[in-house]
């Protein structure tokens, strides 16, 4: 019953094999056997969404899937989201642009979930964005930065802006954030810099 089983998956485009106990979760297989530690475990009971990966294109909680169930499947983890090493996907770049992360522990789950969400709904309403994000928990940001990141990606994709962004060293080219922000009675009223 607990005898290890050989499994083979296509993970981030590469064929990977492992021999795993039937009870071992896909999350643990990815983290321990594949050494892909970007998939994080924050509740291990399917609520927080930190462990979200794409399994044959569908977003799943990898803590609720056994590794043996993924035998023969195609898996995409957060490490496989960026178009190339050293680059960021548009969602990843938007998280950085909009301060969509602080400690970053929940971020891989959000990034993967949002890619899947926008695949199915490329032009979500405000309510659909917040609803679409509600399967993932973040304890740091209060979600404003994350919602802004999704808004930015939706805007960019609608405008045909290129995906991908240099990961390091690029400072904001715009001027101080007060430029163009409204004032009330002489007080600058600000929201996060990329808020629409």
């Amino acid at each position: 019953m607990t005898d290890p089983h050989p499994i083979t998956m296509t993970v981030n485009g590469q064929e990977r094999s492992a021999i795993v106990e039937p009870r071992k979760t896909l999350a643990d297989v990815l983290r321990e056997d594949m050494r892909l530690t970007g998939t994080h475990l924050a509740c291990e009971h399917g609520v927080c969404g930190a462990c979200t990966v794409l399994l044959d294109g569908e977003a799943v909680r990898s803590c609720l899937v056994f590794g043996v169930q993924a035998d023969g499947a195609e898996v995409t983890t957060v490490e496989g989201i960026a178009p190339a090493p050293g680059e960021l996907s548009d969602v990843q770049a938007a998280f950085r642009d909009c301060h969509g992360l602080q400690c970053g522990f929940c971020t891989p789950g959000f990034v993967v979930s949002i890619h899947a969400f926008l695949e199915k709904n490329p032009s979500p309403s405000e309510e659909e964005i917040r609803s679409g994000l509600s399967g993932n928990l973040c304890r740091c940001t209060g979600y404003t930065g994350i919602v802004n990141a999704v808004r930015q990606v939706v805007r960019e994709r609608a405008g045909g802006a290129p995906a991908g962004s240099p990961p390091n060293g690029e400072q904001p080219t715009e001027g101080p954030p007060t430029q163009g922000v409204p004032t009330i009675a002489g007080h600058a009223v600000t929201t996060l810099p990329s808020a629409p």
Partner: protein
Amino acid sequence: MTAVESGPAAGTQSGSHSGVGRFLGQSVKRREDARLVTGHGRYLEDVLWPDAAHVAFLRSPVARGRITTLDVSAAAALPGVRAVLTGAELNPLAKSFWQTAMGKDSPQPPRRLLAADDVRYAGEPIAMVLADSRYLAEDALELIDLDIDAQPAVVSDHRGVWGAAKDEELVHPEYGSNVASTLPYPGMPTENPALEEVLSSAAHVFEERFHQHRYICVPMETRGLQARWDPARDMLEIVSSTQNVHEVRSMVARLLGLSDLQVQARAEDVGGAFGLKCFVDKEELAVAAAAYSQQCAVAWIEDRNENLVAGGHSRTEDLTVTMATDADGKILGIKGHHVEDVGAYPTYGVGGNAGLAMMMLPGPYDVGQYFYSAEAVFSNTCGMTPYRGPFLMETVAREQLVDIAAAKLGIDPLEFRRRNMITPEQLPFSTPTGLVLETITPIETLDQAAEIIGYEDFRREQAAAREEGRILGIGFASYIEGSPAFGAAGAEQVTVRMDMAGKALVFMGSGSHGQSVETTMAQVVAEELGIDIDDVRIIQGDTTSAPYGTGTAGSRTATTFGGAARIAGQKLKEKILAVAAVALEASPDDLEVSDGVVSVKGTPGAAVTIEQVAAMAYAGHTMLPPEMEPGLEAKHRIRNPPLMFSNACHAAIVEIDRDTGAVDIKRYVVSEDCGNMINPMVVEGQITGGVVQGIGGVFYEHFVYDGDGNPLTTTFLDYLLPTAADVPDIEIGHVVTPSNTPGGFKPMGEGGAICSPPALINAVRDALAPFGGLPNVQPLTPEVVLDVIDGTAAV
């Protein structure tokens, strides 16, 4: 700069710039992010040593009782299990068990690593299995034979009937009482006769008891620690998910009777903490002790169930506030009585936050006469641990009473606040508890919040909505955020080291766990040195490289590390100029640094690069004057006041569904003054995150025990965190009044969580005013709201 200069101290900041520069005051994008968004962060569980034994704890299933059977032999015999340790083996290793900030002699309950003979809260660790994997370790737990003769538990209920009254049942017989601590402290006055006089003669006296329920930190990354004892190197090596590596080192060294030199503690990326990881608790210490006793590598990653049940709890208190006013609503005196439940084993000392709540209860108001008393009580529940704004009960209670009093007096709640707030003319203002407030701006932030949210317009909208049967309300709350930096916490050091290539390594004893320290501190240093931010790297989280420090906690990083970084940067810049002056045969006073180049003012052609200066400072030391020390390194250990202050005003508009009792937060506005902002984007992120933790606390999160001390909310299906669908965009305005410390920075980071609960509760209270009073209970569940609407609220 995303802000206006405002307030009495505007323009008085000393120094060469006002806080806005090439990097300072700019929303520089975070240098942490590229690795974290691509899954290349390194959290503790990502760097576990391959040979580490994995720990699973056997935890008490009951709140109080005697252990009658504990047989681990079958578990120890399971293949793959390396050892099963109980209190009998592990507890004798504990030579000393106290937190540095509390000192050796502070009273505290009797400490132990593992329960032995009896158990004192549900979830208390009794035994630990060390196995080849966590799966196997949990298998072994099933084989441990445990019997406990359960006894009646001391459990406070949620309406303020405190278990301590049952003094025949002692949580800690050794302590002799269930009263953990009291205020006033011995030697302090036990009453304020002048306040009693005011209370007996004032035109109006208001008194309410406010309750705050148990809600908790819940970082997305739970606690964890791995340790390896290497007798050949005489070194215990530790990696921990912590806010404070130096405290990990000190606690473990003291515990095991080792010297600080025999313990190295590091942190990698830390996935949130909110106070939970600023002290070191028994599970983490047990892992270190096991590594030491078994002479191997041992790792423990807390799972979510453990984290909820036994990871340290917070809030859980009542505060009764009595306030006297004259006929016009001018506050004449305030009295507070605070009762806290600190659980069985608070992580620090005897727990309790009344000492700081006492200092802060007057808040941004000139309150006249004042007195505060408090009692902290033990219970058979998980111990108290700090959670963002640990002493926020003072603001939660005061701001509710302000609204209640204003309503009873028929005064607009904003007008009531303005009448009583400390004015610019009163600064510096000495509070009744001896605090000196120098640069606060409570009226400015109140006015800005009211403007942004459109207070007058809302009142008209609200009146019209009520005509239609809709239930709308608005709530405000104001506060002073007091950031304690007692002892070593007020004296942090930053060391800036520029090697021969002209790049700056910055070493500090901070412990970033989401605060963007790698970015903000690089902004400060790059600004001072006149080099690019990419030529600065922040090194933290390692006791063998960082200057001694107290980590990141208490909203202190900008004020302490930021201030120290600024001065250390200035010192290094002076040295750079002194070396460059030799190369350029000029006076240092005639030189300037910009974009990594030192040049003679007005003569751009006469210039050397920082890299050339750095090479000369080391390799060309024979060219330097004899009195000049070679090299480019500077440090500064700051000396900050023991308490620093920022202030803010929060405003919320809610609409309540008459049928379901659901509360929809339609708008949420913060106006704050944290002095000069290093990075406005980061400031706003901290505020937003804190506010949403307050939303969670008021409406969703509640750690519940039954009457026998059994935890009932042990998963994320029961302990509800707010999601993106439950919260609005947070709108933020800034008033900037620099502090008088280096950089003009003020403490911020906790305030969002401190001020949001009363603002939200006041909004619900305002919405429900037509239905009668809102009872002083938390959380505000739909049931509570519907009871008010239906007229059945129990007060």
